[in-house]
């Protein structure tokens, strides 16, 4: 046996490596392996989020709309309730009623002719409405009102729902039973019924919309917070904290809360479009924002009322509404995927 091995091993000439052996092959897809293990949790989430094309598109849309909602009305000379008008030579009022979108400079470049009419020199990006108010200003002002309502209510809802769900999940037992029965009943009241009862007790307006949203949107948050709490509360670090003598309040809000915040933020992203939708719907029906204030909902209603004569008027608020829904949904989807990445996405 030993003899045989010696025979095969001996005669081979030593292999001398050539230079080509150390050159990379062409057309091979080589890239640095992104190792998420070495990243902190939030850094990983952010990396995942920005890798998601849709989520980035959503973020861009929302950022642009937010910027326009903040600065849009300022970019214009007209206020949201100002009627664009001037006095002509005979000292008569000329009001810019129902003017279609116009940009004099662009018109000159495209057609080579000057605009005609009383307001030839004026720029109206979105046109004016039937009373002569500038729609650019009104659209962004309305978007501002809608977004403000949505953000304020959803943040309050988040605090209420989160605390409710965490407490219910943490204590369990009879407390949980009672709290969950209450949620069940509260969840079986249609939003419409809540709104109609509120309409009896409250004056129509922004307050009614906010209260209606406050009463309904916390439920979803509380469910998610409770589910997260049930998942986390058996973990060792909670036990460790309790052994060290931490009080319940400390454990719930200081130890567990930071670890449930991801799913809750995702839920917030999905709740904001719901809030905007509800606001638009209530304002359209006539129990929401009251004139001359405006929101996306009232703008759509205005546009609808004048659709046969001024059909372009309804377009800007509808596009703003649709883009807001789209943006927040994309961000929500992206966040959800980034917070709980599947293995194949790694």
């Amino acid at each position, binding site marked *: 046996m030993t003899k045989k091995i010696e025979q095969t091993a001996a005669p081979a000439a030593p292999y001398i490596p050539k230079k080509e052996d150390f050159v990379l092959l062409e057309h091979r897809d080589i890239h640095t392996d992104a190792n998420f293990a070495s990243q902190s949790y939030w850094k990983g989430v952010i990396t995942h989020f920005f890798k998601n094309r849709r989520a980035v598109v959503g973020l861009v849309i929302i950022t642009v709309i937010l910027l326009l909602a903040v600065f849009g009305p300022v970019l214009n000379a007209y206020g949201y309730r100002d009627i664009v008008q001037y006095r002509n030579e005979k000292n008569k009022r000329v009001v810019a009623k129902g003017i279609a979108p116009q940009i004099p400079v662009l018109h000159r470049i495209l057609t080579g002719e000057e605009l005609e009419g009383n307001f030839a020199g004026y720029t109206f990006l979105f046109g004016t409405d039937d009373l002569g108010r500038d729609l650019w200003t009104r659209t962004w002002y309305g978007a501002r009102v809608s977004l403000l309502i949505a953000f304020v209510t959803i943040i309050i809802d988040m605090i209420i729902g989160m605390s409710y769900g965490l407490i219910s999940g943490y204590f369990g037992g009879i407390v949980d039973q009672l709290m969950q029965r209450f949620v*069940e*009943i509260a969840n*079986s*009241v*249609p*939003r*419409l*019924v809540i*709104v*109609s*009862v509120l*309409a*009896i*007790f409250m004056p*129509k307006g922004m307050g009614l919309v906010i209260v209606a949203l406050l009463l309904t949107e916390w439920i979803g948050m509380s469910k998610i917070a409770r589910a997260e709490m049930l998942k986390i509360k058996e973990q060792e670090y909670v036990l460790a904290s309790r052994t060290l003598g931490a009080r319940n309040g400390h454990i719930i809000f200081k130890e567990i809360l930071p670890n449930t915040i991801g799913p809750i933020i995702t839920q917030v992203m999905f709740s904001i479009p719901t809030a905007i*939708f509800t606001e*638009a*719907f209530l304002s*359209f*029906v*006539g*129990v929401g924002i009251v004139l001359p204030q405006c929101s996306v909902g009232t703008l*759509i209603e205005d546009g*609808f009322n004048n*659709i*046969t004569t001024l*059909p372009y008027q*309804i377009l800007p608020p*509808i596009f703003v*509404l*649709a*883009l807001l*829904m*789209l943006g927040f*949904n994309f961000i929500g989807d992206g966040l959800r995927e980034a917070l709980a990445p599947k293995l194949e996405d790694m």
Partner: protein
Amino acid sequence: MTKYILKRLGMALLTLLIITFLLFLLVRIMPGNPFPSERMSDEQIANKRAEMGLDDPILTQFIRYMGNVLHGDFGKGTSLYNGAPIKTVLSTAISNSFRIGGMAILLGTAVGLLLGITAALNRGKFLDGFCTVFSILGVCVPSYVFLIFLQYTFSFKIPFFPYFFDNTRFAFSAVIPSISLSLFTMSTIARFTRNEMVEVFDSDYVRLAESKGMYGRDLVMKHVLRNALIPIVTVLAPLVVDLLTGALVVEKIYGINGIGKLMVDAIAGEGIDYNYVLALGILYSALYIGIMLLVDLLYGVLDPRIRVSAKGEEA
């Protein structure tokens, strides 16, 4: 299974009763006088109140009201329709709303399923992309916006369909509202069906079925679709409820005498009609709870595992 159903039914009825009582309480403690006081003396008002039983304890009043409601008697409106009995107004409204809503649900579910299945079978191809864009559009744009556009295009620019709802030509004038109401359901169902089916296609048991030689329609119908349907049923319930809410604006815009328009008239008009608010509140809650219950039960029928675990809970 029977015990499970009875338990759910009991819970649903109890919840409805609680909600109804709260509604009744809220509407009754409203400040205000149900009678035009300037035309009646104090004595007359007192007599009338006693006659209508408004001085009785609230619980007695509630029981009497519920007794009437169970006979379909919701009383009379205080300001709407010149005080016509709510029962007659409501019955026409319900029939209108349900026919249009029903058509919208059928259309939305059927087309949505079809779209979703087509997209899942052509994953990554043009049809899939089309389905994605369509479902995003349908979710982001409210149904009344679709209605406004359809109405503007096909009733105003091209006067083919009636501009407002016309009860004498029901089928013809129901086309536009049903389509616009169905779009949200359609797009949500399409997206869900697609995602669920794609997930099921990747599962081990479908791979097993394929490896034993199953393919084509048999595979899709027997293994993929049935398993994909279960989560779809759960989204259908909130969709039907959303439809109710969406129908509110659609009915208002298109002038349909349905429950949604009644609700708008009752709360957004000059004076609020409490009796209508109460009647519609009960109706909406009953519908909502009924749909939730139905879906829960349907869920059990579709997925045997849930039946089993429900039995385990009782044992």
